[in-house]
C-alpha cells in the first residue's frame, strides 16, 4: 500500500442511542476552520474573510499534506516503471480514479478522465465528441447563464462546422425557462451543454429534468458541475448525464486538476483529444493504435500530484456531514441576502428560488471594483467583475457585480464582516 493511502478517519464518536431519532447536528464552523491553515492569515491587519470560493476554495491541511507526502516520499512517474516508487505512485493515482468514480457514483473507473479542469473537459467533449458529429445547420444548445468556458469551446466548433449555437433563456430572477428550453431541443440539436450551478448567480438548475427532456429526443448532455460539486452530492447515474465535468480547486483540491466523467460507450467511440505518451497501445511511423479510455484521453505525464491532492480533497468531502453543511450554507445565503438587501442602494443579482450560497450584488452608483477595493481593506475578499459571464451581466444590465460565495469554513461572522464593509462603501463614496 502506498504511503498516501491512509486508513480512513475513525467514524464520529458518540453514536446516538439505538432507538432515538437522529438529532440534527449544527455545522461546526470553528472546527472546519481549523482544517484550513490559510484562514489564519490576516489582510490589512484584519482577519481574512475569504468569500471568493466560487473562484477557488482554500485547501484543508490533509490536501496539502498529501501533496507534500507524494513529493517527499514516493514521487515517480506512473504507468512506466517496475520500481517501488513508481508502483506506489501508480497505485495512488489509479486508486484516486476509483475514489472519483465512487464520489460521482459512476459505473466504472474507466469513465473517469483526469483533465486540467472543467474548461479542458468541455473542450475535450466539444472537440472529440461533438465536432465530428456536427454538420452545417446542426445545433448546439447551451443556456443563458453559462460561464465563458461553456460558450467559447462551442463557438469554435460551430464556426468551423457552420453549426448554430442556441441559447436557452432565463427569467429576471436568473432561473432557466424550461418550456423555452424544451422548444429549443430540435431534430438538429447534436448536444446540450448546461451548467449545473451558475457561478455568477448561484442558481441551481433542474439538470435531471433537463437531461430527461433532451434524452427523450435522443440528444446527449454535458453538465458543467464546477460550482455544484463543492456544495452537493452529485450522482451521475441518477442524473443520467452523458458527460459531467468539475474542477478540483473549487472542491478544496489543488489547481490544475479536474475530472471529466463520460459514459463508457461514448468514451470508447471518441477519438483522442491530444496525442502523446501514455495514450497509445502501439506506435509505428505508419500507424498508431490507442489505449482504451481513460488512458486514451490522458496523453503525456499527468498532474500526478494534483490527482493525489484531489483524492485527499474527496476523502475530506466524504467525511463531512452534508445535511448539516447544506443547512448551514442555506442559512448563510439567507442571512447574507437579507442583510445586503437592507443596505440602501444595494441590489441583488440572481434571486432564484434554488440557489447555492452565492450572493452577487451591485451598489447603486459605485462600480464593483471600487466595492471590491473597499471590502479588501476590511479583510473581506470578494470577486468583482463579470465572473467570466459577460452575457449574464448584459442580461441584467450591469457591467460587473461584486460576488460573495461561501464555503464550509464561512460563518455568520463572515457575513457580518461583509455587511459592515459594504456599508462602508457608502461612507467612502459620501452617501
Amino acid at each position, binding site marked *: 500500500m502506498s504511503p498516501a493511502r491512509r486508513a480512513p478517519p475513525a467514524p464520529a464518536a458518540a453514536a446516538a442511542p439505538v432507538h432515538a431519532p437522529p438529532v440534527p447536528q449544527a455545522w461546526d464552523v470553528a472546527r472546519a476552520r481549523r482544517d484550513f491553515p490559510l484562514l489564519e492569515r490576516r489582510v490589512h491587519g484584519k482577519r481574512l474573510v475569504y468569500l471568493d470560493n466560487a473562484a477557488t476554495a482554500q485547501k484543508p491541511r490533509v490536501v496539502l499534506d498529501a501533496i507534500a507526502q507524494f513529493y517527499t516520499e514516493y514521487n515517480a512517474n506512473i504507468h512506466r516503471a517496475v520500481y517501488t516508487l513508481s508502483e506506489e505512485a501508480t497505485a495512488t493515482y489509479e486508486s484516486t480514479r476509483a475514489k472519483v468514480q465512487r464520489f460521482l457514483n459512476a459505473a466504472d473507473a474507466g469513465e473517469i478522465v483526469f483533465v486540467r479542469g472543467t474548461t479542458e473537459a468541455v473542450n475535450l467533449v466539444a472537440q472529440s465528441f461533438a465536432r465530428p458529429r456536427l454538420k452545417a445547420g446542426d445545433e448546439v444548445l447551451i443556456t443563458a447563464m453559462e460561464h465563458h468556458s461553456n460558450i467559447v469551446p462551442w463557438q469554435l466548433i460551430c464556426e468551423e462546422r457552420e453549426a448554430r449555437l442556441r441559447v436557452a433563456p432565463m427569467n429576471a430572477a436568473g432561473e432557466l425557462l424550461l418550456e423555452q428550453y424544451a422548444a429549443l431541443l430540435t431534430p438538429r440539436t447534436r448536444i446540450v451543454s448546461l451548467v449545473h450551478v451558475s457561478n455568477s448567480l448561484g442558481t441551481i438548475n433542474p439538470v435531471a429534468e433537463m437531461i430527461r427532456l433532451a434524452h427523450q429526443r435522443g440528444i446527449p448532455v454535458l453538465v458543467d458541475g464546477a460550482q455544484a460539486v463543492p456544495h452537493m452530492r452529485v450522482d451521475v447515474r441518477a442524473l443520467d448525464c452523458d458527460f459531467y465535468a468539475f474542477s478540483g480547486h473549487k472542491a478544496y483540491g489543488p489547481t490544475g486538476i479536474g475530472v471529466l466523467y463520460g459514459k463508457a460507450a461514448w468514451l470508447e467511440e471518441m477519438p483522442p483529444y491530444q496525442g502523446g505518451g501514455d495514450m497509445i497501445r502501439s506506435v509505428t511511423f505508419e500507424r498508431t493504435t490507442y489505449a482504451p479510455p481513460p488512458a486514451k484521453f490522458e496523453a503525456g505525464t499527468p498532474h500526478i500530484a494534483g490527482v493525489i491532492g484531489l483524492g485527499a480533497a474527496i476523502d475530506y468531502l466524504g467525511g463531512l456531514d452534508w445535511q448539516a453543511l447544506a443547512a448551514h450554507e442555506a442559512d448563510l445565503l439567507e442571512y447574507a441576502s437579507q442583510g445586503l438587501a437592507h443596505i440602501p442602494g444595494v441590489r441583488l443579482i440572481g434571486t432564484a428560488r434554488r440557489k447555492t450560497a452565492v450572493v452577487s450584488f451591485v451598489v447603486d452608483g459605485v462600480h464593483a*471594483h471600487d466595492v471590491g*477595493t473597499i471590502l479588501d481593506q476590511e479583510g473581506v475578499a470578494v470577486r468583482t467583475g463579470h465572473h467570466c459571464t459577460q452575457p449574464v451581466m448584459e442580461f441584467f444590465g450591469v457591467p460587473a457585480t461584486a460576488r460573495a460565495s461561501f464555503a464550509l469554513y464561512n460563518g455568520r461572522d463572515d457575513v457580518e464582516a461583509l455587511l459592515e464593509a459594504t456599508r462602508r462603501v457608502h461612507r*467612502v463614496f459620501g452617501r
Partner: protein
Amino acid sequence: MNPLGELYQQLIIDHNRNPRNFGPLPDANRTANGDNPLCGDRITLRLRVANGVIEDIRFEGSGCAISQASASLMTSAVRGKSPAEALELFRSFHAMVTGGPDAPSDPRVLGKLAAFAGVRAFPARVKCANLPWHTLRAALEGEAQPVTTE
C-alpha cells in the same frame, strides 16, 4: 489619512460623480478606444488637435471611479496643451501612480492630478488610473487598435 482615503479622495469621488468633458465631440479629428476587458472599464476619447494644441477633448465610457475620475481630470489637464506636453504629463503621471524612478518628488507639480498619488498603494488599480492616459497616447499617435492596460 488611511490608504482608502488616499485612494478615494474627495476630488476623485467628485469627478466620478460629475465627470467633466463627458460626451461626444462631433468635430473631433483624433479618436481612440481603451478597454480593460477583464474589469470592464471602457473609454472612448475624442480630440480636436489643431494649431499644435489639443483644442478640445471629450470622453465617453463607463467603469470604476478611478478610471472615470482619471479620464475627467486628464481631459481637463491636457486641454490647451501641445501633444508633446500632454505626453510629458503622462510620463509624470505614470511614474507617480506606479512609484517609478521618474516620479515627481512633489506630486503637486501635477496639479489636481496629484489626487491619484494614493493609487500607488493599490497595485490592482493602477491600470484603472492609466487607461485614459494610454488611450490619449493612442489617439495622439494614431493607433487604430483599442488599447488596454491589463
